[in-house]
């Protein structure tokens, strides 16, 4: 390990909030405007216990804007509605389908979960 690397190990940022560090001079003018920093976990996953992350390999679902190595955020608690993109199961294998207008009971596949976001890395 490079010596410099040591500086990269920091305390966790979970408790980070503007204004929590001690200020010795003037009181912060932001005091009454404090809000928590954006937490992607709470925005992208509304129901943690029903949320699963699933990776896709290959470009077979390009038509759905899903590319190789993208990660799907799937919310199993989300209602299955017409037009939603969903991970489904037919004949024992996973597929991605858009929910058609037919009644949910008449679907030709089993819905595993509704896709809520696609994480695409550009690094």
């Amino acid at each position, binding site marked *: 390990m490079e010596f410099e690397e040591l500086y990269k190990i920091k305390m966790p940022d979970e408790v980070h909030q503007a204004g929590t560090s001690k200020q010795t001079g003037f009181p912060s003018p932001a005091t009454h405007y404090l809000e928590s920093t954006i937490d992607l976990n709470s925005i992208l996953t509304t129901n943690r*216990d029903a949320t*699963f992350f699933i990776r*896709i390999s290959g470009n*077979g679902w390009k038509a759905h804007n899903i590319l190789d190595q993208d990660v799907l955020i799937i919310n199993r608690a989300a209602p299955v509605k017409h037009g939603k993109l969903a991970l489904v199961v037919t004949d*024992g294998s996973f597929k991605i389908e858009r929910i058609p207008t037919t009644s949910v009971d008449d679907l030709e596949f089993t819905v*595993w979960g509704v896709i809520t976001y696609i994480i695409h890395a550009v690094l």
Partner: protein
Amino acid sequence: MIALVDCNSFYASCEQVFRPDLWGKPVVVLSNNDGCVIAANKEAKALTDIPMFEPVFKIKKLLIENQVNFFSSNYTLYGEMSQRVMNTLKLFSPQVEIYSIDESFIDLANMRFVNLNAHGHQIKNTVLQHTGLPVGVGIAPTKVLAKLANSMSKKITGYNHVCVLDTTDKCIKALKKAELKNVWGIGKQHRKRLNNQGIFSAYEFAYEVSLEWVRKNMTVVGERIWRELRGESCLSLAMLPKAKKAIGTAKSFGKKLTDLGMIEEACAYYISEVSEVLRNQNSCAQYIQVFLQTNYHSDRDAQYSKSVTVTLSTATNNTYMLTREAKKALQTIYKPGYRYKKVGVNLSGLIPQEYVQTNIFEQEISKDRSQLMRTVDKLNQKYGKSTVCSALVGNRISQWELVKNDRSPRYTTQWKELLTIDSECL
């Protein structure tokens, strides 16, 4: 009213959630070191008489011949999925007692006006939708009856995994059908004694045996079960998990070890695992047991096993102090020339951290030391298991740790092990 919710073939179901190709197929899960079958789903149970707890090497052929899918146990996955189920149950009542990894009691005391059967189905459907795991629900006035209702929910197809015993009539009918061995909390000994008295069904126990007889022969524990079966609630929901009385671990090595140095490293590694559990529940151990054994299944190897228990001068949960003691203990039982299969450690005599007595020759437990352990725990929680550990653990883990060949990925806890679906395989 109390509901008992339990997951159907929990370990196998956890595996199947992520493997739709295995839906409806036989699945079994093997024990920690792939030693024996510890769980089987209903398809596997129906298929053939796969013996539970039988060493795998004896039945592997049978499993393959019957096209049974088998997995090494993946407790990381099961533990995480269990958490999801328990959290989902909290949507239905603030009072949830987690009874085991796949069972929970829910207090429905404030649900008097809802249709309990519909409510039970809603619990079942919600858990299935959110987590993918099938559950059975038993609802009754007491814990013991809820447990009975739960087992009926599975056995009687018409119930469709939800059984409600909400009237005395229904309870009595259920008790008449239930054999004593299906009653929660009645052990083999008591069952035998009751059978000798001509008591075979749960109904006969609850309504034909007198309270005096139960008190005299089955103590207060039996009395509670007796009362609960009659619909009188005696067992309240335990909301807080009980702190463990002893914590231990012992796992087989990936290959037989002869070298003391390597065994010491494995032992130190186990100590760091168990002492972390100890610190999480704020207790300290008074005794430490270390044991060492060869492979008793082998006819060719010379056999040896030995265990030693050491009383610690001061109860502790400090990894470094425990590691030092374990190392000393190990050296006293180790004999060269044997091929060892496993080393184990067991911490017992657990007492709350704040009650630790120091002995007069020792200084007070140093604040620095517990601060050090807190920091180590925090680092390991953030950066992963064993990021910081005692030097005695060494860096040869891959040389002794058992590789679980058939373990599924840790789909829900490791970013690198996410379920990956091939979009081009059609």
